[in-house]
């Protein structure tokens, strides 16, 4: 009864917030419809081939976002804190992969034809790079949790967040001091050369599906499925879900809560490391700043899908990737401004559906 009376009360007088919400919503939808109409029907500048190209770019980048976003969501689901340094953990993984490729490129297997190790055994080289990246990131994540987050577990919410911001700055500058601020280029095995790819003819135009893109997308899908199975099917996953639900009860059931939290950080680190190597293989450049923007975007993706929700992070990542590549074309703005689109989407989602696409409505305590 109390509920009905409050909802009636709300119906009578709209708050400033709701009015603002409605105005922004109407404006946004009108603008979007007008732009879509202009771009698709009136102007028709982009043919199907261009749209396909956008979709490919979006899916590839979205896959990477999704993998990073899962790391955020896992940690958030358990500790209700944003692991702000997640992007930097990914950056360290990308550097680890870079060094492995670099080292394997120095090792020459066939001196006559100058075949390097990474070209002679590309699969092995790639696996090695991924393993190293995952280990480096995972160790960083676990160490970070142990040093910077564990002592603050009972502190007010702002405290661990600031600690995480500090850790992020620390790691970024550590990388800058160690590896210098210069940009480094990934040396992929020839089988995964950047720029090369299958060519599809659409609408009389060539559309290239890059090998690295396909590789990135497939690996990210495999990682996502693997993680989903891990969380849903294994004992470890069950323990993680139990801790996410209620730490005290989980502890009473004989679950080692600290251990599970460490494992969660390890898994999120593994995913971040893999994402870092994928980023390096596909985009080709690594520097100390490379984790920042993907980190924020992935967080956006996690919020978009509903933070704390693993399938949500996957959907959110792919969705964000596509929006980012298609958005500038639809809105008719400069492609430089795609970051602005991502953040605007974040703000819009938070206005209209703070729980995200797939997220359940969380209690006040959790949000």
């Amino acid at each position, binding site marked *: 009864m109390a509920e009905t009376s409050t909802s009636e009360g709300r119906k009578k007088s709209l*708050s*400033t*917030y709701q009015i*603002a919400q409605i105005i*922004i919503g109407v404006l946004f939808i009108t603008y979007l419809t007008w732009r879509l109409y202009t771009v698709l029907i009136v102007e028709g500048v982009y043919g199907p081939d261009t749209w396909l190209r956008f979709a490919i770019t979006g899916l590839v980048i979205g896959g990477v976002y999704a993998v990073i976003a899962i790391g955020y969501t896992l940690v958030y689901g358990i500790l209700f*804190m*944003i692991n702000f340094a997640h992007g930097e953990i990914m950056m360290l993984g990308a550097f680890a992969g870079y*060094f492995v490729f*670099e080292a394997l490129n120095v090792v020459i297997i066939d001196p006559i034809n100058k075949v390097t190790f990474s070209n002679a055994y590309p699969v092995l080289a790639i696996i090695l790079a991924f393993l190293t990246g995952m280990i480096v990131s995972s160790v960083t994540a676990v160490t970070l949790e142990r*040093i*910077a987050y564990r*002592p*603050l577990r*009972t*502190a*007010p*919410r*702002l*405290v*661990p*967040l*600031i*600690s995480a*911001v*500090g*850790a*992020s*700055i*620390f*790691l*970024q*500058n*550590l990388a800058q*001091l*160690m*590896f*210098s601020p*210069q940009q480094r280029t990934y040396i992929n095995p020839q089988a995964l050369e950047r720029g090369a790819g299958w060519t599809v003819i659409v609408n009389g135009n060539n559309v290239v599906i890059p090998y690295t893109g396909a590789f990135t997308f497939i690996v990210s899908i495999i990682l996502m499925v693997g993680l989903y199975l891990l969380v849903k099917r294994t004992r470890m996953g069950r323990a993680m879900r139990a801790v996410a639900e209620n730490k005290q009860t989980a502890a009473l059931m004989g679950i080692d809560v600290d251990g599970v939290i460490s494992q969660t950080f390890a898994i999120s680190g593994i995913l971040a490391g893999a994402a870092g190597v994928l980023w390096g293989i596909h985009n080709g450049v690594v520097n100390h700043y490379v984790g*920042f923007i993907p980190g*924020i975007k992935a*967080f*956006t993706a996690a*919020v978009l899908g509903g933070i704390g929700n693993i399938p949500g992070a996957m959907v959110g990542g792919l969705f964000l990737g596509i929006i980012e590549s298609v958005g500038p074309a639809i809105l008719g*703005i*400069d492609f*430089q*401004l795609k*970051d*602005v689109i*991502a*953040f*605007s989407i*974040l*703000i819009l989602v*938070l*206005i209209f559906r*703070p729980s995200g696409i797939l997220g359940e409505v969380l209690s*006040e305590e959790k*949000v």
Partner: protein
Amino acid sequence: MPNYIRNGLRSGFVFGIVIIFLILIGFTRVANELLAPLVKGTSQLPMGFILFMALLGLWAGASAAKRSPVLMGMPDTYQKWNAIISGLIAGIIGGAFVGLFIFVLGSIQTKGMDMRVYLAQLSPDAIKMLTLGRVAWAGAFSIWLIFVITGIAGGLLALFSDSFKLGERMSSSWKNMSAGIGDSAIAKTVNQNAVVRYILYGIFIIILLILPSFLGKYWNYTLGTIGIYIIMGLGINIIIGMAGLLNLGYVAFFAVGAYTVGLLTAPAPQGLHWNFWIGLLVAMVMAAFVGWLLGIPVLRLRGDYLAIVTLGFGEMIRVLVRSKALSSIFGGPQGVRDIAGPMIFGQRFTEREYLYLIVAVIIFTIFITIRLQNSHLGRAWGAMREDQTVAQAMGINIFRYKLLAFALGAAIGGLAGVMFASRNQYTGPEDHTLMVSVNVLALVIVGGMGSIPGIILGSFVLKGLPELLRQIEDYRLLVFGGLLVVMMIVKPEGLWPSKRRQLEMSDVDLPPETDALQVLEEQSSDQKLRGES
């Protein structure tokens, strides 16, 4: 495994890893330069580096021996051996890590490979220093030996300091220090006695008035920068310290202020040539408006979301002003040049006059802050910060008060932006990076949220110290990041916390329930006692 062996292993391991990182970030080279004046080094032997290593070895040994519990009733010799063995193990293990690392570096070096391609700090000179100018294995072995010896010495030191109660005295004095300047007797008198406080303020203002005339252009400029950061600290203090809303994109408001005044007064790209003072007012209003506008959608969110959205917003503004597509409006990557400033006798303000202006603005802002703190607004914010739900139940319109906090904080941020842009006569996208937000946040947190002297102290520490210590400037951000983490763990209320905040934050240390109950019981028993008397 006995405790003392495990402690030795652990300490050696941690120190070994940390020293390897110090080598990788090139800090050993800086330490060599910093410590060199203390010991007479020769051109062959980098004595500063050796001293640095010896100090770290002492520390490693001491910390290993310290961890071992003092066993009551055990003979003295037993404890002595315990301490020495843990120190020795720490030295051996830590030294082994470092020695091995140096050996590897030295061997690669002799093969003629330039490691700087991959690891920026490992120049041939740096490696020559690490190996003490010898062959790789000899240098590595010497370092190892130094570490082992100092490890044992550290263990003994810990033992002696124990028997002289040195450690306790040290730790208690450290505790006193870390209890904060806010707790010291001077600060107490300052806090409690209004007359003393006003006299101190008066002296401070007089010093501020006289000082700039004696300082050169450079120091006036630096002090001005510190002053601008104080203004920003005071502004973000309204948002974070008073209203408890974490804002990681404060630079957005700074940028709005700087760009508004720039676009209104500069000849290009708009060519408006407005008067500076009108531009200043418009910029403040504009910043407040942007804060309000941003606040409407995001203030419904709590803590973490708010942090990320504001962070994104800060980056968004930078991307917008830098973008070539909008360069006809904002000037693009080149920024805005020839921004007008205040005039005196037909002349532009010099660095010194800007310093006066900035100090005046700081005093104005402090005045506003104090007035806000004591008004119903400040109390509403305090209630909101402590418990939003309860505040709402008390009839506080949370949304409106949050918006107000955002708008006011933004206006002050805009004011700081105006000062910055007009003093430099230029503003560009690179003035408004994320690091500005982080610096401001860091200085408020280091100084103490909600505390005006804390903010001033924080800006001097974070912006002033690097000016004095040019050698460690490269490590400033690294130290920043580490400092934020350490502060949060050790002293989340800041160096000079406000009384109220100290009380709030002290809750953190109480384990849940039991202690709170005890406190309640004590309070009630106190009341009973009072009632009886």
